[in-house]
């Protein structure tokens, strides 16, 4: 890790602004355009994934791989929870179709 500095946190501010842009972009696409439904879903889905990746790097110190195994375990468990929650919900709420 870098030495403790009291300098300006450039990456954090940049990450924050980009997250806002991506979020409001998604909102704009969903509310203010008249694209077909599936297109909208694809666009906002992609924006969400981009933002997730962005946050992992800008805020979650993904690249500061000091402790490799811990990071791997974290990513895997986070991924599992996401799969269970998203895929599970879709499966259950579509009544097993």
């Amino acid at each position, binding site marked *: 890790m870098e030495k403790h500095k*009291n300098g300006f946190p450039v990456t954090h501010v940049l990450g924050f602004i980009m997250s806002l842009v991506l979020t409001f972009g998604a909102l704009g696409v969903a509310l203010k355009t008249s694209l077909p439904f599936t297109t909208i879903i694809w666009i906002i889905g992609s924006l969400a994934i981009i933002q997730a990746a962005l946050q992992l790097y800008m805020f979650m110190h993904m690249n500061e791989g000091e402790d490799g195994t*811990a990071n791997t375990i974290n990513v895997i*468990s986070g991924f*599992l*929870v996401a799969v*269970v*929650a998203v895929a*599970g*919900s879709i*499966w*259950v*709420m579509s*009544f*097993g179709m």
Partner: protein
Amino acid sequence: MDINWHDLFIVGNPLILGSQIAILLSVIGIVALLTYLKRWKWLWREWLTTVDHKKIGIMYILAGVLMFFRGGVDGLMMKAQTSRPEMNFLDAQHYNEVFTTHGVIMILFAAMPLLIGIMNYVIPLQIGARDVAFPQLNALSFWLFFSGAMLFNISFVIGGSPDAGWAAYFPLAGKEFTPGIGNNYYAVAIQIAGIGTLISGINFIVTILKMRAKGMTLMKMPMFTWTSFIASVIIVSAFPIFTVALALMTLDRIFGTHFFTLSGGGMDMMWVNLFWLWGHPEVYIVVLPAFGMFSEVIATFSRKMLFGYKSMVFSVVGIALLSMLVWVHHFFTMGAGPAVNSVFSITTMMIAIPTGVKMFNWLFTMRKGRIEFSTAMLWALAFIPCFLIGGITGVMLAMSAADYQYHNTLFLVAHFHYTLIPGVVFAVFAGLYYWWPKMFGHMLNEKLGKIHFWLFTIGFNVTFMPMFFLGLDGAVRRSYTYSAESGFAPLFLVSAIGAVILALGFATFCYNIYWSARYADRNISNDPWNARTLEWATASPAPFYNFAKVPEVKTLDAFWYMKKHNEGLTLSDDEIKEIHMPSNSGLPFYMGIIFGITGFLLVFEWKLAALVAAVGIIIGLIIRSFDYNDGFHVTVDEIKETEKSWRSSDGKGVKNHVG
């Protein structure tokens, strides 16, 4: 922003008027007492701004006991209302509010803080640490929890309580069917407390992974530390789901979106799905630390090492994994079809396997042990058969086809009380009797403890056993009354009598706290139970820096090993070094208040005002990020002084006396 001011204070109900007056009087009483005793500064310095995990733990426990009282009164009110057919004590609306607040308060504001409180006090001591990893964040957790709990609690006097059940199912919980502000309290107050819990989870994971004493590998951790660690992992996995669900609920109710509404393309059952995606893991969040406490208590009072430590660890991890995969068993009757329901039936039944493993481990720990029937041990002993009943009826409910019959009856209510009360409440009592001397330097009275135990366990069984049979006879849950022709009356009456016995048990406990604080012997050693884990290696109550010298761990049950080999029990002057400790901070308390105010304004849908208040939250965050306070150092002399007060002067062993 037009609010009907008449709605603000609930008027016209004598019960609520009585509570309003009681609340007002107690607030005045407390303020007057503090002023009279000149204790304001003390309160601020020692408690409100503390970052000490032990004091935070005690505040959690105190809040939990108070909330248990509140939730218990709700329970008694329901039991009074259903004690006879066609009673007129509570009307339907009031009964709805009471079971809703009872459920939320018992689980989120009583069980959770009692467990997190004990975790806070005990875990750093058990792993030989001086505090949690992020002490100030820990204080923030507490104040957010407290703020959320208080916000939720004032609902019944200001604005009206939520009334859509503790699971707040849509569409009922939505604006269309419940236009009042009661359910806003649910959405907002639980959110605030939930942020606190999530932060706690992160804090405990880091603490346990990073701050263990030298030599304590993962497989040498005490069982309570293990189960709390896994519970924290589940918190971090499951609470974000609830955070999102509650945020969507807030948007639906306050900002007019349509996530869960019937109209506008909403999906009401999606709320149910998300709620239980969090809700089922939540029951394991509360029950796992409790299992850990029973493990410590049973090992200590059987004078044996925990049987099958490794299989215990694996079954806890297994329970954690499975706990994320069973949520649909709460709504089999949605009718998601045979594939979905069968899968979730099977995963649910599979949880019984690791749980059964743990049961047998406890039994084998006791086998051939020299069992000492202390009050703490009695709770652990009673837990086993009572929880077994809860577990077996759980397997019955897990069969999705059969669940169509049990669903929404008092059979279910009896089932989950048979898991939550033995599994959590008994455990908390066991833990409190066991760790009380460590927390306060005196024991709780054992004789009163046993009266408490017998009244509570007998009362518990008499209250809830009849509810199984009522449920099988067709008595539905959440129903405020029943007819004389139904034939339910005798069992309901028995159940109500049981609730009174239960309440007497709790009253005995409260009296025990009072009695012991006044009269109990202070001449106890640091290790009154002849226990096995590190928290007993330091003074009782533990000094604020926990350990003058952090012990080195060689085996499981590290303190037992130290005692048997007479290693590391003494402290020579040259071993004492300065200790670095974190400084107090008023910021977490401030954050609790500002979150509470923002939440309150949001509940009343005064959006602009809430936005303005939210600026206060941002300010708090900014202040925190410019806070470079690195704590302070405890001098060697001060440590010497403190240690001398409980260690005997020749440096060997301890005095039989605590400061």
